[in-house]
């Protein structure tokens, strides 16, 4: 934890040493602190079960619907403590989580899905304007607008889900594994759009991603979670050079060439991050 986030110009979201407990017994997050700067992209990395999704749910308030709660620490959004608020209240403040697994409303059409995104406010003409904006970023959705969302392709579903959150005019977007189960070309397309959104609409993003290489390319700053603890955070440039990250998450050897699968020894970490 020696390194400070160098992006000092204004923090929009601040997680302050939060602890999350499920069912009042299972401690899932044990002190996680994350800063997301205004207009920035921050990646959250870690293996399965490290607590990445839980962190996002703690921020968006969805945690409370899974019988979990923030038992310690605080979450501040634009200077306001939000961790005790309901999911609805948090959404009203502009935080929208895109849940893992392309959760479209299957029995609504693509356009109806998008309209539900504008649930919190927005009259007829404003909604039309935002629909135009979404179709501008996701031109593929235009011809699929009247198809049931359950029947469009996986990539289009992911676009629908991102577009749906966009309809809400988010002040902060939490993206949970947007690349999951998609073809490489589609992943590239979606990530291009995500970066565009960040640049042009100035929407700050907190990105959870298993594809570490991709995440470190898109996000200039990243945090690494393991077993519910924050084990390191740094600029992506430096993380890419970090031998542990290279070995464990990227599967690269010291000189930078790709290791063969046989050489990757998952159990043999250079040092334990936590002792």
């Amino acid at each position, binding site marked *: 934890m020696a390194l400070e986030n160098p992006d000092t110009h204004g923090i929009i979201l601040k997680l302050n040493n939060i602890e999350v407990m499920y069912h009042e017994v299972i401690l899932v997050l044990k002190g996680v602190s994350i800063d997301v700067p205004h207009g920035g992209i921050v990646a959250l990395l870690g293996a399965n079960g490290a607590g990445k999704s839980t962190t996002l749910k703690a921020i968006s308030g*969805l945690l409370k619907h899974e019988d979990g709660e923030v038992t310690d620490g605080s979450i501040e959004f634009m200077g306001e403590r939000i961790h005790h608020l309901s999911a609805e209240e948090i959404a009203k403040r502009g935080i929208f*989580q895109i*849940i893992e697994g392309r959760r479209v409303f299957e029995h609504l059409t693509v356009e109806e899905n998008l309209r539900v995104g504008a649930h919190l406010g927005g009259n007829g003409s404003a909604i039309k304007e935002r629909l135009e904006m979404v179709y501008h970023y996701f031109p593929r959705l235009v011809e699929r607008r009247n198809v049931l969302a*359950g029947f469009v392709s996986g990539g289009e579903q992911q676009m629908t889900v991102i577009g*749906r959150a966009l309809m809400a005019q988010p002040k902060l977007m939490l993206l949970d594994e947007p690349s999951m189960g998609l073809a490489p070309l589609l992943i590239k397309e979606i990530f291009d759009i995500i970066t565009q959104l960040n640049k042009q609409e100035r929407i700050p993003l907190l990105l959870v991603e298993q594809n570490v290489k991709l995440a470190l390319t898109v996000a200039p700053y990243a945090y690494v979670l393991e077993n519910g603890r924050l084990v390191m955070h740094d600029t992506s440039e430096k993380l890419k050079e970090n031998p542990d990250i290279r070995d464990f998450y990227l599967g690269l050897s010291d000189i930078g060439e790709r290791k063969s699968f046989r050489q990757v020894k998952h159990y043999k970490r250079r040092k334990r991050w936590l002792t």
Partner: protein
Amino acid sequence: MELFLQLFITGILVGSIYALVALGWTLIYKCSGVLNLAMGELTLIGAYVCITFYHWGIPFVLALIFTLVVGFALGILTEILFLRPMVGEPVLSVIMVTVGLSFFFKGIVELFFGTDTVVFTPTVFPIEPVYIGKVVVGQVYLWAFVASIILLLAFVSFFKYTKWGLSMQATADDEMAALSLGVNAKVVYALAWAIAFMAAGVGGTLLGNINGLNISVGYLGLLVLPAVVLGGMNSVPGAIVGGLVIGVLQNLADGYLSPFTPGGVKDVFPFAVMVIVLLFKPYGLWGWIRIERV
């Protein structure tokens, strides 16, 4: 052929009332996964509320509108008082709560209105029948049909074109995703009960106009179950078609089979159909099988 047409048309007209009640049933199931076994009692309460207004001298149409308002309020109240404390409990427990509710409501009705059959006096609709070709139809049936269709259209457009309608469908589809967009699930459940109460109330009122009103109108709730199952539990158009089909089948069974049986075919037949449908189409005609893309 004339007999067939006669039975068929009467069936459609009565079926529209079933459709209305089935819609309420479907809605609650769709949004919260709860089979509302108190549906029949909701129709009962609505009908008694309406007849009370009517006997106070309020014109029928106005009384019907008041019934809708009262139904809306009662629906929200029921949800808040009885269902909300059960959020997060197993669905079976919630269904048992609705069983309790059905007895509770029945008790309330008996307490306030007694068990004697009451009729709308003066009769709301003229008694002279109407001729459609060679088919004779009571005006009550015709107007009940018109009222049901208007209300059904209103509900369907509510789901299709309004913000809360869409959000209700969204919540039925994926509650967590809807929550993440700031949809308040509590409001959605309350709305579902309110609409169910409204639909049931009008259904009960119309039926009360046809047969007179007593505690047995509450059995309509159970009679509608085959319609709901036929349509596929969570499909709104399915509930409407299911209601109409059950209405027709019931009348045909009554017309053609009653002479050969000691009676009661009319009540049994819809359930026989339900069993057969379940055998061959367990999800009903338009029920949700989870959409799987391969």
